[in-house]
């Protein structure tokens, strides 16, 4: 397997504060990779460095192309969909307009993309005229995910998808992500506080601590690791 996404010695800062001290990681095409770690470890910043929403240095390669000079819109056009923490739904726009924005970089008709997404989220079809801000938190998270799928990304960046969601919805969400990975070969990089869930859904994982990669491996390796068990799985 070849790496679709490769980060080499990536640093990022918010003003004077260093958030990443040289992160290196690789995501293989067609895999689901989880990023674990405590608060402030730089998990969200890692995703933001990839999508270009934070100032970064170092080498970022995506499908053989360098990302580190591109802004967020350029990264999106290469086929990377980033679902940010707090969802990033356009609450003032309708459900349909949100989905249409997901396909913004695609040319021509997007009807078939929408139909495809409605097979995963059938309820969205009936509510396409509803203002997105009036959806519940869980529904907005699903909408954000659906919007990312309309984009037909080569790589999906998911930031804390379980945040503030009922457990039933979280399970549903991960089931859909896994489903898309298996049936359509979607590559996913997911940041998740809930290590149980993340390691269940992922093929491989990275544990970040204080802006550095502390540990990495397949999910089986990580589950077997004592420090991971103690710190993140709690047994």
């Amino acid at each position: 397997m070849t790496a679709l996404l490769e980060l080499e010695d990536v640093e990022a800062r918010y003003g004077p504060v260093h958030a990443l001290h040289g992160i290196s990681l690789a995501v293989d095409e067609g895999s689901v990779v989880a990023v674990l770690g405590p608060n402030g470890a730089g998990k969200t910043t890692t995703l933001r460095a990839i999508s270009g929403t934070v100032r970064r240095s170092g080498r970022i390669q995506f499908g053989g192309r360098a990302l580190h000079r591109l802004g967020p819109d350029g990264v999106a056009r290469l086929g990377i969909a980033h679902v940010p923490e707090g969802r990033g739904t356009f609450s003032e726009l309708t459900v349909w307009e949100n989905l249409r924005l997901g396909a913004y970089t695609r040319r021509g008709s997007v009807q078939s993309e929408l139909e495809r997404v409605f097979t995963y989220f059938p309820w969205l079809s009936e509510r396409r005229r509803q203002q997105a801000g009036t959806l519940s938190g869980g529904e907005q998270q699903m909408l954000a995910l659906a919007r990312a799928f309309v984009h037909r990304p080569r790589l999906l960046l998911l930031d804390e998808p379980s945040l503030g969601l009922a457990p039933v919805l979280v399970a549903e969400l991960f089931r859909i992500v896994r489903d898309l990975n298996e049936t359509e070969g979607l590559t996913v990089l997911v940041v998740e506080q809930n290590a149980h869930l993340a390691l269940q859904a992922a093929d491989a994982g990275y544990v970040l601590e204080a802006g550095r990669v502390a540990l990495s491996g397949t999910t089986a390796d990580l589950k077997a690791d004592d420090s991971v068990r103690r710190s993140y799985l709690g047994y």
Partner: protein
Amino acid sequence: MTQSAAATSATRAVGGALERLPPPTSLLLVAGAAGLLVGSLRSEVFAQLTVQGLALGAVYGSLALALVLVYRATRVVNFAQGELAMATTYIAYQLIKWGLSYWEAFFATLAIAFVLGTVLELALVRPVQHRSVIAAVIVTVGLFILIDGVVNWIWGGDFKYMPTPFGTKTYHLGGVSIARLYPGMLGVVLVSVVLVWALFRFTKLGLGMRAAALRPAESALVGVRVDWMLAIGWGLAAVLGAVAGLMAEPSQFFLDPTLMQPILVYAFAAAVLGGLESPAGAVVGGLAIGVSLNLVVQYVHPITSELQTPFAFAVLLAVLLLKPSGLFGHREVRRV
């Protein structure tokens, strides 16, 4: 989208907009329209003033809409919007002098205005906006002075005369005579406004522009080129301003560099009355200001035409004090 589908969807959008208005506002609008109708049926002078006021109000509304578009896109109040409109009217004047017909010059001017608005945003506003909004607002005040100076330098301050766009025909409806100019102005402005609205509502570009104005960071994440969208927004605003300038000129019967200065005050009053965030509010606010200025000067004794501009300012002040969100402003519906 097929035509009938677009039409249905447009009807639904208009119906939906009325439903979404706060009840006092929709009541006020219906009562106002009914009052104008009854007054017009009872008095010929009232009817003439109403039609004229609506035509002038459409011009104010068009400039107000330009202000709202710029404000929504970049959070900048563009004090130079009126002067930009005045300058583009001079460009039309020049094109006609060079031999173009009125309507050729009209459309050529709109194209030039679009380029001008876009370039101004890219060259002058963008570089300072990252520092602070106030810096950008001060730049627009500087632009006001700059444009005024340049126009005076090129064309001089004396009156210029342009051919009339709608001829000199007068319609007679019962005892009411209405110069063709006024329905003409109203028609041109409303068609431009509807076209701009349709662009925002039904096209991918319009969706991108709305998204970029509402949430720039999230828009970039889905691949919208936010910077371009904001520049295009300024271009469209300049086009609406040019329409306002070109339609204001025949109502004044001559062109001079102060053409848009009182109109800018009326447009501000209209935009604030409608709610600075609401495009529909700007247009309705413009019509309301236009009609009420005309009627108040005729029927309210101590207010004469000299007091028109102060009266508009009083409206602006009253709205800011009593209902800062304006008639069409509403609290955002959002569930967390």
